[in-house]
C-alpha cells in the first residue's frame, strides 16, 4: 500500500490541525463575515473576523464542515493572520495562492504562512488544491468586499 504516499499528504501537523482546529467557533465581536462553499464537494466555511480601527485583525473564528485538508488549512490560516493588517493578510493569501499554483515563493514569504506553508505538499494532489484554498479564498472575499457583519 501507499501508506507512505498517504503520509506525505497527511503529515502529522496537518492531522493535528484538522483534529483540533485552532480558532474554531464564533466570535463575539464581528466586523467581517463571509460564507464560502466548495461547490464541487459541498465543503463550507463561515469565516468571521474582528478588525480594529487600525485595520489590524484582532481575532478570527471559523465554523463549517470539510475534509482534513480544508479544516487544517482554515486552522493554519487563522494562526497566521491574527495580528496582521488587512493588507498583510491579503498579501499572505496571494502567497498561499502562488504556492498552490506551484509558482516560486521566497523563503521569507513562506515563513509568514507559518504552519500553512506545509500545505505545499497538496500541489502533488491536484484534486485537493481546492480543499486547501477554500479558507484563503474566504479570507480574500471577506477583506475585499469589506462587508460588515
Amino acid at each position, binding site marked *: 500500500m501507499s501508506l507512505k504516499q498517504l503520509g506525505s499528504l497527511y503529515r*502529522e501537523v496537518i*492531522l493535528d490541525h484538522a483534529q483540533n482546529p485552532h480558532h474554531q467557533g464564533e466570535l463575539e465581536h464581528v466586523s467581517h463575515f463571509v460564507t464560502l462553499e466548495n461547490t464541487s464537494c459541498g465543503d463550507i466555511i463561515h469565516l468571521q473576523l474582528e478588525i480594529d480601527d487600525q485595520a489590524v485583525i484582532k481575532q478570527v473564528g471559523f465554523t463549517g464542515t470539510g475534509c482534513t*485538508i480544508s479544516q487544517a488549512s482554515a486552522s493554519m490560516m487563522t494562526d497566521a493572520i491574527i495580528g496582521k493588517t488587512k493588507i498583510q493578510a491579503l498579501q499572505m493569501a496571494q502567497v498561499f495562492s502562488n504556492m498552490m499554483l506551484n509558482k516560486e515563493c521566497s523563503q521569507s514569504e513562506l515563513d509568514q504562512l507559518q504552519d500553512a506553508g506545509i500545505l505545499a505538499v497538496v500541489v502533488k*494532489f491536484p484534486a485537493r488544491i481546492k*480543499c486547501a484554498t477554500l479558507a484563503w479564498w474566504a479570507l480574500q472575499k471577506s477583506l475585499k468586499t469589506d462587508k460588515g457583519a
Partner: protein
Amino acid sequence: MGKSIINVTEDFPILQQKINGERLAYLDNAATTQMPSSVLSKLNCFYQTSNSNVHRGVYTLAQRATDAYEHARIKVQNFIHASSSSEIIFTRGTTESLNFVACTYGEQFIHAGDEIVITVMEHHSNLIPWQQLAIRKKAQLKYIKLTSQGELDLDDAQKKITSKTKIVALCHVSNVLGVINPIKQISQWAHRQGAITVVDGAQAIPHFSVNVKDLDVDFYAFSGHKMLAPSGIGVLYGRSAILEELAPWQYGGEMINHVELYQSTWADIPAKFEAGTPNIIGAVGLGGAIDYLQAIGLSTIQHYEKSLTNYLLSQLAKMTDINIYGPVDSDKHTGVVSFNLKGVHPHDLATALDLNGVAVRAGHHCAQPLMKFLGVNAAARASIYLYNNIKDIDQFLKALQETKEFFSYEP
C-alpha cells in the same frame, strides 16, 4: 450462445493500466463507464471509412454516415423496445434530454396552479429543470418523500399525485442510493390522474433490460457514457403522440421542412428535434455499446452485478464504523453503494483509495436535497459495472480497512 461475461475486463484497454503503482480498480461507474475495444475500433473505423455529415450529401460517404447514424437509432429503439425509431431523439445526454422535456412539454402544457411531482432522491438534472419550470409557470413543485430506508414512500406518492398533477418526473434508479423505483406502478398512478411520466433512466439502462412500452412511460432519458459509449451522446425516448404535439426546441439545419423569409415548417419527428449537425460519432459509439451489451445479455449482466453487489454490501456491513446509505439488500439495489467511514471525510477517503488504485466518487453526487435528507454533507460512493470482479471489490475493501487504520491516528 452469447458472449461470456467471464474475463470481460480484458476487453477494456483502460483497465489494464496501473494507477499510482497499483492495479486499477475502477469503481466509479455511476459517473462514467469505460469503452471496450470493439467500441473504440468502431469509432476509429467510422472516422477512417465513413466520416461525413448526415442527411445532406448525395455521395457515397454521406450515405454511409447517414446509415451509421440511423442504424444506431434503430439499435436504441430495439434496445428499449420503443414502437418506432422516430420516438428516439439523440441528445447530448440525460441532462439535455430532461431539460428538453421541461422546455418543450413543460413550456407548452404547464400552467399556473398545475402540479409537478418529483422525488427527494433526484439528481440535480431531474430537479432543477422542474424547479425552474415551476417558478416560470407559477406551478407547484411537490416532492415524494423517502422512507427511513431510503426507498420511495409509495403511500406518499399516491397522495402527492393528484388531479392537478401534470408531470411526474423521477429516476428509475437513484445515483446515490442505488434503489430501483417501481416505475410501472408510478406511471399507472400518474396516468390515472391525467399526468405524464418522465423518467431519468441514466443509472438503470446500463444495468438491466428496460422496456418503455411495458413501463408505460411517456419520456425516458439516458446517457451513452454510462453504458460503454462515449460522452456527449444521449437519448430521449418520447411517446410519438406527445412528440407530434411539441414545438421545436432549437432551430437550424436538419429540423426544417420548408423555410421562407417570414415563416417555416418543420421536419417530422425525430429530425424536428435534432437541429444542427448531431453527434454522429457518439451515436455510432452508442450503437456499438448496445451491440456489446446485447452480446452478453442484459439479464446476464444484471445477475452478475447483483452477485458482486451482494458481496460488496455484505462485506461492508461487516466492517465497523461504516455507514451505508439506502437499503442494504441487493434485491432492491443496483451496484451503486454510498457510504461514509466514521471520522474520515469522504474526500480524504477518496484520496487514500486512489493511492491504492481504487477509483470511487466522493462528494454530494449532484443530489444536495438527498444529502440533506440523509443528514450528511458528502458521501463516498462505489459503483459497479460488468467489467468489475471480486478482485476489484477485495482491493477496495482492503484499501478501506487500511485507510481506516491510517486515520485512526491519535495526536
